[in-house]
């Protein structure tokens, strides 16, 4: 079998998903024999931007250059994967969206004029066509390995869209909302983490992002109402949505 050429690129992010990818490679070193890593600065010294079978993008775009780079990568890649919540939905840096970036710069930097960033934070899919979106802050390394394996053997993951609650119930975890009145975003958040927070008796704060197929403004509003009764203010609920689901929040307007 010809080795699949792979490039791993980072935009605005913490490298956490890249570390999950490294974990996946460490856990399954046989993967390294089936792929040819062309670009991956965290792993190797010699990197070239060339035609790729698979491009993996971590992080979101916060300025024009990111968009150019992304378009270039898209043009060179057969398959483009957005890895993690930042790349797929915007990520935690989106918490600043809605405020003029000059305000933000002034707040953090003594010389704001040197900082290049626009007011928006854009998910990869807002800029180029994405073939596969993986959520998670961070993305789950085991799920990542499973998907890479399928792609390497010539397949494609069969996606199932469901709420975190489905995983929570299947795992036999007692619902924190119903039994303890703890605010939990699980009902509107995409499954994928294995109901991590509820397994520690804590409410989901939405780091896999809200569902993108069956949620509209009305449903988000209903959820907000329910959470408010449990003590999570609208403002704080919106922050959680912004922080982990920004690109969907944008598309929810109307």
């Amino acid at each position, binding site marked *: 079998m010809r080795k699949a050429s792979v490039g791993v690129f980072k935009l605005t992010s913490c490298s956490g998903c890249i570390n999950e990818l490294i974990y996946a490679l460490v856990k399954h070193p046989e993967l390294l024999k089936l792929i040819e890593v062309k670009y991956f600065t965290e792993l190797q010294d010699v990197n070239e931007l060339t035609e790729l079978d698979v491009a993996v993008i971590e992080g979101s775009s916060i300025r024009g250059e990111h968009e150019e780079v992304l378009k270039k990568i898209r043009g060179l890649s057969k398959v483009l994967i957005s890895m993690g919540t930042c790349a797929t939905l915007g990520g935690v840096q989106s918490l600043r969206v809605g405020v003029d970036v000059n305000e933000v710069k002034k707040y953090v930097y003594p010389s704001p004029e040197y900082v290049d960033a626009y007011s928006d934070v854009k998910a990869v899919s807002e800029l180029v066509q994405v073939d596969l979106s993986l959520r998670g802050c961070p993305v789950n390394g085991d799920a990542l390995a499973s998907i890479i394996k*399928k792609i390497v*053997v010539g*397949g*494609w993951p*069969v996606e199932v869209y469901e709420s975190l609650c489905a995983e929570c119930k299947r795992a036999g975890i007692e619902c924190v909302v119903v039994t303890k009145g703890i605010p939990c975003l699980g009902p509107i958040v995409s499954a994928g983490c294995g109901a991590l927070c509820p397994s520690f008796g804590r409410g989901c704060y939405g780091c896999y992002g809200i569902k993108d197929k069956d949620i509209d403004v009305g449903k988000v509003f209903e959820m907000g109402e329910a959470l408010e009764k449990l003590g999570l203010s609208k403002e704080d609920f919106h922050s959680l949505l912004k922080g982990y689901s920004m690109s969907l929040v944008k598309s929810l307007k109307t």
Partner: protein
Amino acid sequence: MLAKPLTPLPAVVTGVIDEAPLVKTIYVALRDFPEPAPGQFNMVYARGLGEVPISVSDAFRRGDRLVIAHTVRSVGAVTKHLTTFIEVGSQVGIRGPYGRGWPLEGMEGMDVLIVGGGIGLAPLRPIIRYVEARRDSFGRLFILYGARTPHDLIYKHELGKYTEIPNSVVKVSIDKPYEGWTGYVGFVTDLIDRIDLDPSRTTAYVCGPEVMMKVAVRRLASRGLKADKMFLSLERRMRCGMGVCGTCQFGHYFVCKDGPVFSYDELMNYLWVDGI
């Protein structure tokens, strides 16, 4: 009950035919596999990826083996794999045959009307084989078939031969004008109005996209066909093929075991309800 109801039988691919863009027919040869009836389907398994329900588009004996044809269109993860990576000699898994096929026994003497849209011709082809093999037992054979473009027609090599079947009428349409196409342009359901139909002695077998089947039902009804003489083959998400996974439910039917073929009068209460 099968001894191993959820376990596919390993099968070697013996032939692959390019039918149309994204569409291939995959032949597998199996020993000890029940002979499928026209309209039944198998679950085809691509190892490590998943299973998909695929209609049997042909089945015949070769020596001690049963050769089964599955016509697959690349739309999802598994079908994409089947149409891209599977070649002669590849291994797949097969479970089946499942479901209730086309009612043919008891229809002797009737005219047979086949209406197929796109890849929907695949499950109808065994009817043609069946009637051809028992030509004297049936009345006229109408084959109405349509696709988006001439390229999207499947069984191209065979379509011409259908006209050679005695007492048959074959009409083929494409949706929009296409350079070089001299046949009918329009929807396949339009052709229903262009044949000499005797509603009192016709059984209609319809398969295609659900919208097309709905139009066909209306047209056929307007031509005087009774609801119990129209048969439709439905598509749904299917995971088990035998009524346990629940994902193919349509009203109270399990499409996999109660169907996939239904008479229109069985469906009447559900077919027009969006998303039932």
